[in-house]
């Protein structure tokens, strides 16, 4: 009847699977320093190209190049590298605790350390992050007590969250770190709402929203973008594209058809795609977006291109769905090494200091873990009374009765 052939169904597949050679041949990496830097007041439609290229500052030689390069304070740079190392040491210690059965669950951010830390160091006191579970760097580059973080992971007597949350789902208002939700994507619109509130009150504080590549598919991503587009609040909309969402590659979130940064363009929101393994690029672009927000110029989206070197979580074995060697083949390298090389090159750092620092943070984390363990492991030390607190500000009669029934 019809002169049309049968339709066929297309499901995107990653270029390689376990057993194959890693293949990033389709992954384009512009040379560092080649992408222009517009003024913060530039119109969204005049910088659409920035959503499809990749802003890079640190080149292979460890130089800082191009218009996004800037002189950074020496202390800031050293603090950044040390925070990245500290984050890595923290992750390793937590993995050990998990293997030792002291916590049930953990999530590393290996390979993504530059992103959270690069942005946090561009924020001001009072700004508020709405993070996911892979931004521990936001806390670890501030003065948040590591022992508290570990206690949260151990759900013990000193867990600031009273044992109520799964490990890694930290919360600290004081450190501008919104309570992490287990439900993906919900925080994106919270950040927008918080930024709207700041504008409504004539404040100067801004919000940052965090989401993973896979989670951009969640509906609340759209809710956030629509509201950001309509009300133009002071918010930085971060997408951490680490290529994977548990076992699904970024094509299952639509990444094969457009960059994640491009999503924002259809809402008239300026959007930049950035090498997320390049601390200098992260910091520079973050500052640009934060400046836009703080100057009341509205929201900015940033896609941070990176790679999830670690398994999704301790419950996951990535060799089931991607080549074991894929992370080593990742073209953007290791963010720690890249910053280290730069600092060595400019004379701020040495191999020796690096080795020393690694040992120092390993030591710090051991000591901190030891202290934290003394308050209990695997939920030990948590109080059953805490089940009933904080459901409401004041405990209603039915909860009082239930607590009595439990006898606590």
């Amino acid at each position: 009847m019809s002169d049309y052939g049968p339709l066929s169904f297309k499901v995107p597949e990653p270029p390689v699977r376990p057993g194959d050679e890693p293949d990033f041949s389709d992954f384009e990496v512009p040379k560092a320093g080649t992408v222009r830097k517009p003024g913060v007041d530039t119109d969204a439609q005049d910088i659409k190209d920035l959503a499809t290229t990749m802003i890079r500052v640190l080149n292979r030689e460890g130089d800082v190049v191009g218009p996004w390069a800037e002189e950074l304070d020496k202390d800031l740079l050293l603090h950044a590298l040390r925070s990245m190392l500290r984050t890595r040491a923290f992750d390793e210690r937590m993995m050990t605790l998990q293997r030792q059965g002291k916590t049930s669950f953990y999530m590393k951010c290996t390979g993504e350390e530059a992103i959270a830390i690069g942005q946090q160091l561009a924020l001001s006191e009072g700004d508020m992050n709405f993070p996911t579970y892979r931004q521990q760097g936001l806390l670890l580059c501030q003065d948040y007590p590591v022992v508290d973080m570990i206690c949260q992971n151990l759900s013990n007597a000193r867990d600031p969250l009273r044992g109520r949350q799964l490990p890694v789902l930290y919360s600290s208002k004081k450190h501008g770190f919104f309570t992490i939700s287990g439900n993906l994507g919900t925080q994106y619109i919270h950040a927008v709402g918080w930024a709207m509130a700041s504008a409504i009150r004539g404040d100067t504080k801004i919000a940052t929203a965090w989401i993973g590549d896979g989670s951009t598919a969640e509906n609340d991503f759209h809710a956030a973008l629509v509201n950001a587009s309509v009300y133009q609040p002071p918010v930085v909309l971060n997408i951490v594209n680490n290529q994977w969402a548990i076992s699904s590659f970024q094509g299952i979130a639509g990444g094969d058809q457009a960059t994640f940064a491009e999503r924002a363009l259809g809402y008239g929101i300026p959007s930049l795609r950035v090498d997320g393994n390049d601390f200098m690029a992260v910091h520079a672009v973050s500052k640009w977006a934060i400046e836009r927000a703080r100057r009341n110029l509205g929201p900015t989206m940033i896609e941070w291109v990176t790679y999830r070197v670690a398994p999704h979580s301790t419950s996951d074995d990535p060799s089931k769905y991607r080549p074991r060697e894929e992370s080593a083949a990742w073209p953007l390298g290791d963010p720690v090494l890249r910053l280290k090389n730069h600092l060595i090159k400019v004379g701020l750092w040495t191999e020796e200091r690096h080795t020393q620092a690694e040992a120092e943070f390993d030591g710090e984390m051991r000591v901190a873990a030891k202290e934290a363990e003394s308050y209990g492991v695997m939920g030990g030390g948590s109080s059953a009374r805490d089940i009933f607190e904080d459901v409401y500000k004041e405990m209603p009669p039915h909860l009082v009765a239930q607590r009595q029934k439990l006898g606590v």
Partner: protein
Amino acid sequence: MVQMTMIEAIRSAMDVTMERDENVVVFGEDVGYFGGVFRCTAGLQKKYGTSRVFDAPINESGIVGAGIGMAVYGLRPCIEVQFADYIYPAYDQIVSEAARIRYRSAGDFTAPITIRSPVGGGIFGGQTHSQSPEALFTHVSGLKTIVPSTPYDAKGLLIASIEDDDPVVFFEPKRLYNGPFDGHHERPAQNWTTHPLGNVPEGHYTLPIGKAAIRREGSAATIVTYGTMCFVAEAAVQETGIDAEIIDLRTLLPLDIETITQSVMKTGRCMVLHEATLTSGFGAEIAAQVQENCFYSLEAPILRVTGWDTPYPHAQEWDYFPGPARVGRELKELTEAI
């Protein structure tokens, strides 16, 4: 004190709180310039400006989610979901976020948001303008759920909700917006202008969340109900001449089980009456608690009189709505049982 419709009382509640606290903001679909499809926010944008009263994109999850973000900042958003039938897209934000933020952060963050939304049928609105989804919220710990039935209660409870430090879902029986309604749809509509419960103070006052009201004292049975059904219950009592006590819950969660228990202990018989679908409706919870608390006083099974277990039909609205005739019939059966 002046006479107010429930719409005016609700508007006045927002007005009064906005005047006292600049952290109170109001937004939702069509609530700004236009003043809301039911006019609950009429005039507020003019008075408080577009920064505090404004239109929202048609995205209920975004409305609640942005409201949560604002509340986390320190504002007290009072938002509108245009019809309760459209609250489901926001369900995750309400259940997983608003209701959980205090708990999961151990009090570090809180989300004192008030979500207003019209519920109930009787306006020939079909299945997507008639639903009563309150039981889907009473199952969620961390939320408070309120259904007022009079202008006086609506204002006092809405102010209390906005001032409350926990998230509140505030369901407004739309059939009561302009006047009491006893289910006699064939009779001329009544208006609050002549009703004592439409007599409302102009200024600030609150009613306690979690306290029921005894609308009518009686001894033959207890009718536990809320919203529009309070008036249907009254009509049924009058028409049957059965001396039932009528309890208007006002707050569903936390439930004032005390008042209910006392009444049922006295009357020995209990009807739970609501417009929502029977199965897993809030009536189930009341029945479960009453049988537990009043087991030895009960002279007959607790009866639930509710909407049927179907979507709310359009044309057959009055066969769905538990009107005074059906309630009266059931009340008779209840009081005549053994």
